[in-house]
């Protein structure tokens, strides 16, 4: 086959994939979000699907809460996992490191449903943690942990944080230890080394890990729905309700579009602030 023919053989499946499954569906979603079915059954253009969002307090409050919590969980994931990434790449013996890294992958592949279910059993009123605390006499009656913002945050953190470790580890791996040694010889404190050498060097890994975590958290449904209570509504839950309970697809499309705009904006700002490109996030 000619060179030209081979080129088409490569490009046609890719264009089909992206056009049929990414571009057209999202244009459809945008189109549907501006459509309204009037009382006599006719379809007209309208902004009412978006007006619903701004007029009904619960929708935009949930929207803001989801955004704030997602950023918060991302920051928390960084604080919790950065010491682990550093430990595995720079501190622990090399022979232990690969096995300990393997352990980190297991919860990822087990999947969110199972791990969230595990947290549900742990955090229930008659769950493992409460039973344990009561048996050792620390508390008399169960602490209410499940169905709160606390349990939801634990669930979101658990299912997303490991995705941050891997990119940070690969950034740390490529960092030359002698940089730290030199700084240490010149009398820099640990904090100075951390702030002026380690963090700048790891920024690409932190950014791509942070974006993955943020996207997972803001688009998640399982942890808020199973572990969160009545007060911890998540914006995705409202999208699901529009589609699968009230069957108002036009409003659902508008809400989906708003979520997409929200997440893209925050990712874009994060990329600008850290001076990264989306092409880098993938690698």
């Amino acid at each position, binding site marked *: 086959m000619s060179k030209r023919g*081979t080129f088409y053989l490569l490009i046609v499946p890719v264009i089909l*994939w992206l056009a049929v499954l990414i571009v057209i569906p999202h244009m459809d979603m945008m189109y549907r979000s501006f459509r309204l079915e009037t009382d006599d059954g006719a379809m007209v253009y309208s902004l009412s699907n978006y007006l619903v969002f701004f007029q009904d307090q619960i929708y935009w409050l949930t929207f803001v809460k989801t955004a704030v919590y997602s950023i918060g969980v991302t920051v928390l994931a960084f604080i919790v996992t950065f010491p682990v990434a550093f*430990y595995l790449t720079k501190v622990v013996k090399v022979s232990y490191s690969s096995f300990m890294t393997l352990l980190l992958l297991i919860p990822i592949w087990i999947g969110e449903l199972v791990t969230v279910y595990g947290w549900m059993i742990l955090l229930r009123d008659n769950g493992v943690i409460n039973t344990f605390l009561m048996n050792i006499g620390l508390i008399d009656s169960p602490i209410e942990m499940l169905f709160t913002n606390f349990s939801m945050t634990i669930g979101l953190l658990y299912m997303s944080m490991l995705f941050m470790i891997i990119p940070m580890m690969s950034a740390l791996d490529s960092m030359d230890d002698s940089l730290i040694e030199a700084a240490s010889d010149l009398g820099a404190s640990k904090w100075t080394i951390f702030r002026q050498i380690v963090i700048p060097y790891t920024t690409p890994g932190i950014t791509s890990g942070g974006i993955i975590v943020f996207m997972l958290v803001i*688009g998640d449904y*399982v942890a808020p729905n*199973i572990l969160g209570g009545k007060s911890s509504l998540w914006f*995705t839950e409202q999208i699901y309700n529009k589609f699968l309970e009230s069957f108002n697809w036009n409003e659902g499309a508008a809400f989906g579009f708003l979520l997409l705009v929200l997440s893209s904006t925050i990712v874009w700002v994060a990329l600008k602030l850290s001076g990264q490109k989306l092409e880098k996030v993938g690698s």
Partner: protein
Amino acid sequence: MIRTLPCSLPYLAGYRLYISLFYIFLILPLITICVLAFNDSNYIALPWKGFSLDWFFANTDDRLGLFKDADLLLSIWVSFKTGFFVALFSTLVGTTAALLFEQEQFRFKGALYFLALAPLVIPGVVLGLSILLSSTNAGVYIEETFGMDIELLRPSFWLVVIGQFSFAATYVMLLVGARLKKFDRTLEEAALSLRATRLQVIWLITIPFLRASIIGAFIVAFLISFSNFNTTIFLVGSDPTLPVDLYSRIKFSSTPVLNAVSFMVVAFITLSAILSFVFNRNKG
């Protein structure tokens, strides 16, 4: 601070304590599930009432074990089938995309690559609902125009496969593409100067070079599919996948059979992880 530098004992001890706590946090929910799967009780949580295999094998009025529960076994089977087809299609298209973006030059390449990365920053919910909208629209249109009812375009097994494929292909593309960056292109030039066609070069030289990463990407795509919930829930028809089935059971009718299923998943994943670890170490 690092391996080569001395540091104070309290610092190191504190650091180790933190790492241990982190790993306990990581393993705690998994251990809990695995232990409670063998609890002789009708409730999913404590107290411990003795060892039992009932939630795997029993078939009595109040206990239906995993291996006797036809619905549950069916959803596990559906998940395996879905995972296989998603992995197959996304490996094919993802590898094609990696070859295209790494080796070909053409107009609008940057824009197309950006689109191929887009699934990384589109929430799974939005992917699911937009594909549901489009396929329903197309289905209604075809039915009204040609009078044909196309099963594929309604929530069904194949629509789930299509939906999961739409983003799994991106991950395959990145995994295979990373390996392709290390490919020595003079090998191809040699083959081309010996009059191989471009397609022969790809088939006989590039693909064998990529084999390990293609197999790895296939497994990753399978696992992505096997654990996906957010996109699947919009597209699922009458035969739920395992995550969808688990979700509705957790929400509406939790019995300890959930512990048994979760135990099987944990055991399966852990075992495969350890196997791949041993296998890779022996090879390296």
